[in-house]
């Protein structure tokens, strides 16, 4: 299940300060004791490929990313955050989505510490009203 493939090379045309947007499902929201809502760490993992789909904020629009997913929220993480945990940030433009990128974990292995760090560093671009615990 866990991929051991070599991660894609980092795209150094994406600056460390550039925001990467991640779509957050309603079931991935977590409310801190302070009342603050943040994404759960599982929002930044995919056990199938070891790659997490994100969108370059400079090339994307909120409507373009969330259009088909009206219940989902959108969080932003600077590219420096995954890179600090040895993830690569690789462009993966699609015909219908030139903003598409993937975050690739080192050696294709999962890293729960890094996933949590990304979740903690995430800022909301759009948070849908949702009942969360």
């Amino acid at each position, binding site marked *: 299940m866990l991929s051991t493939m070599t991660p894609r090379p980092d795209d150094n045309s994406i600056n460390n300060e550039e925001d990467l947007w991640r779509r957050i499902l309603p079931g991935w929201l977590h409310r801190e004791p302070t009342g603050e809502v943040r994404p759960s760490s*599982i929002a930044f993992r995919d056990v199938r490929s070891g790659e997490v789909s994100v969108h370059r904020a400079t090339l994307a629009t909120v409507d373009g990313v969330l259009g088909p997913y009206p219940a989902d929220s959108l969080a932003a993480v600077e590219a420096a955050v995954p890179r600090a945990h040895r993830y690569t940030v690789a462009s993966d433009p699609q015909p219908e989505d030139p903003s598409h990128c993937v975050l690739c974990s080192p050696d294709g292995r999962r890293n729960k510490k890094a996933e949590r760090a990304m979740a903690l560093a995430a800022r909301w671009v759009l948070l849908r009203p949702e009942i969360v615990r």
Partner: protein
Amino acid sequence: MTTAMFQSEWVTPPVRGSSRRASSQWSEVIPIERSGWFVEMATAVLRLGKLEPNWDGSGSPPVSRVAIHQALRMLQAVALQEPPLPQVLPVPGGGVQLEWHVGGRELELEFLPDGLLVYLVVEPGTSPEEGQSQLPREDLVRNLVQRLARSTGP
């Protein structure tokens, strides 16, 4: 002790042989005072089994029966420790995650479709601790939940 039974094909798959049935029956017993906790958690986990393919909009397969079974089994194992209610989350790729956030401590138990448990423990003042193990590992999970409970005791 007053007890109640909560049986499910997910928790205890049918086994062949009367001796195994006889020896396993008491492992299914949960005291009545904890049965509400377990039923609530089991319901939340079982609900994940109804997610359709592509439930995440990114092509994820449904949550796997193996992951659901293991999550239920581990919930059953810790029910007596009276932990707080965890958050139950579906994981892209078909896994289940139980997540606790208690008094600055965090515990993530992720059950993968291939039967692997991956966990993360966060305790104040220390670096997060990450590990993994092939399931079933009731002893390991009980110990992890016990660490979480340190912050909830008197």
